[in-house]
């Protein structure tokens, strides 16, 4: 097993809601994700899976426990220097995933411009290349988000995440707002891109079917704890934890 891309070791996150009333979103979460591997993270809303995603992305510092990315402990909130652009995300709501005032090419080029400086225009060629990889012809480059369908917008979001050749991507409910047929396209796309780019992926979803299609390993979260972490095939055929069985029943 090569060096894990991302490693969470006994991570806890506690929120203060009003005086004296605290909520534990993550209660001792530990897992590893290797390059080219996808960990599916499933659970009901309020199970803490979104907070886990935020901690993995470095958006939120854990109350305790360590988060190691490519071996180095992740200190500050905003990735700096070499590791900037190594971590990317594809988030849920296609309607707001892109800046309505920016053309597609600019949105996709932005992460590269943040890493390698320079104006957005200079990175358009790279943007066009990556757009082609997600199945969008060059003619989409100058379009505005309101001219695209939900599926096309999610493709642009994926292209934006890939342009800096990240070693780790978080998919937070990336397909749950899409129609079944469009969802199929996106799932196939993610699968093919991972084979080619070999990034590590954390696929967060409440849709067990979609997770089964992509994940190599599956973690089930409930009220801030991982109740089961297993290889995907074994998990879907013989789930051990009763809560996992309950979830699979509805599939």
């Amino acid at each position: 097993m090569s060096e894990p891309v991302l490693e969470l070791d006994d991570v806890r996150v506690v929120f203060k809601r009003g005086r004296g009333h605290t909520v534990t979103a993550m209660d001792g979460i530990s897992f590893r994700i290797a390059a080219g591997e996808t960990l599916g993270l499933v659970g009901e809303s309020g199970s803490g899976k979104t907070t886990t995603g935020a901690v993995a992305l470095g958006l939120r510092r854990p109350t305790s426990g360590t988060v190691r990315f490519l071996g180095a402990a992740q200190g500050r909130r905003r990735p700096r220097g070499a590791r900037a652009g190594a971590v990317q995300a594809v988030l849920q709501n296609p309607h707001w995933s892109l800046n309505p005032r920016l053309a597609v090419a600019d949105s996709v080029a932005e992460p590269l411009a943040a890493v390698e400086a320079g104006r957005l225009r200079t990175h358009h060629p790279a943007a066009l290349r990556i757009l082609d990889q997600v199945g969008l012809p060059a003619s989409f480059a100058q379009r505005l988000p309101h001219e695209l369908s939900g599926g096309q917008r999610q493709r642009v979001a994926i292209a934006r995440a890939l342009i800096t050749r990240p070693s780790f991507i978080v998919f937070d409910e990336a397909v749950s707002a899409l129609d079944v047929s469009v969802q199929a396209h996106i799932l196939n796309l993610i699968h093919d891109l991972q084979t080619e780019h070999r990034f590590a992926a954390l696929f967060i979803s409440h849709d067990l079917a979609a997770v089964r299609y992509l994940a190599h390993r599956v973690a089930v979260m409930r009220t801030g704890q991982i109740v089961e972490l297993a290889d995907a095939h074994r998990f879907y055929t013989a789930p051990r934890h009763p809560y996992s069985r309950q979830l699979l029943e509805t599939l």
Partner: protein
Amino acid sequence: MTVGTPPLLVIDDVVTEYRTATRVVRALDGASLTAGRGETVGIVGESGSGKSTLGLLTGRLLPSGTRCPRGRVLVDGESVLDLPPDRLARLRRERLAFVPQDPIGALDPTLRIGRQLRLALRDTPADLAALLEQVRIRDPEHVLRLYPHQISGGMAQRVAVAMAMARKPALLIADEPTAALDSQVREEVLRLLFTLAAENGTTVLWLSHDLGGVARWCARIAVMYGGRVVEDGTTAEVLSAPQHPYTGALLAADPARAKGGTRLLTIGGTPPVLSDDPQGCVFAPRCDSAGEDCPAVRPAPRTVAGRTVLCHHPGGTPETVPARKESAR
């Protein structure tokens, strides 16, 4: 469909168009559907297929900018499209009921749950606490005093179901009632909805994209594409042996049904956006078993293997499924 008694709902060849400032969008392009008393019909289709418009049509709840140039809609014999406003309101009050997609949004944020229920059920005497217990809400007295933003989605949907069923409607229309809910809660709400409907003999129209759910709960399934009902028959038969190519493609694309390791079969192209009478079958450009007549001639409904299908070459089998390249660990 119980033969003999006249069907509760008749939607016959209805065309509905939305008029926006810049262009006209045709949501329904000659949709037809009938449902008898007590039937449970699942209407499946992707966004842009017109299923939501069909749901709203039955209660004539389409926004002001829409027109229905063709077709009839009969609920319990009354032609919904021509009813004067007061009789339409009475129809909605006495015969119809709706379960909303966003349960919390459908409740008035400034009123307590109890007050809203009393207002809605002011002419049907009902013990509110008993009503909530019927939909298995623990501690109903407490819930009645809460505001909508203080309760979970699941609980709000149960209140909505209770509110709807308390009026003993003849027809219940539920447009994606469980889209926003988690899997467990989703099952409970569905179980409640269908058992109460069955007890009351209410016909249920469930608009959904959850094929599995429809399979479990609905006796009949209608698949919609491009503003028309392309396949309409008993659920088990349709899902096991789909006659219309789109139904087949839809089933193949569903990850829940894909066997481990097989690649999802995707449908090429994008869903159509109609603005006037289309030539031929709108699915033709994306259909694998399309012949030359498909793009030219508009398919008429025909009965094949006990169901009605809108296709010139029904029964085509989806192409073989290529093995999936495994990514090296």
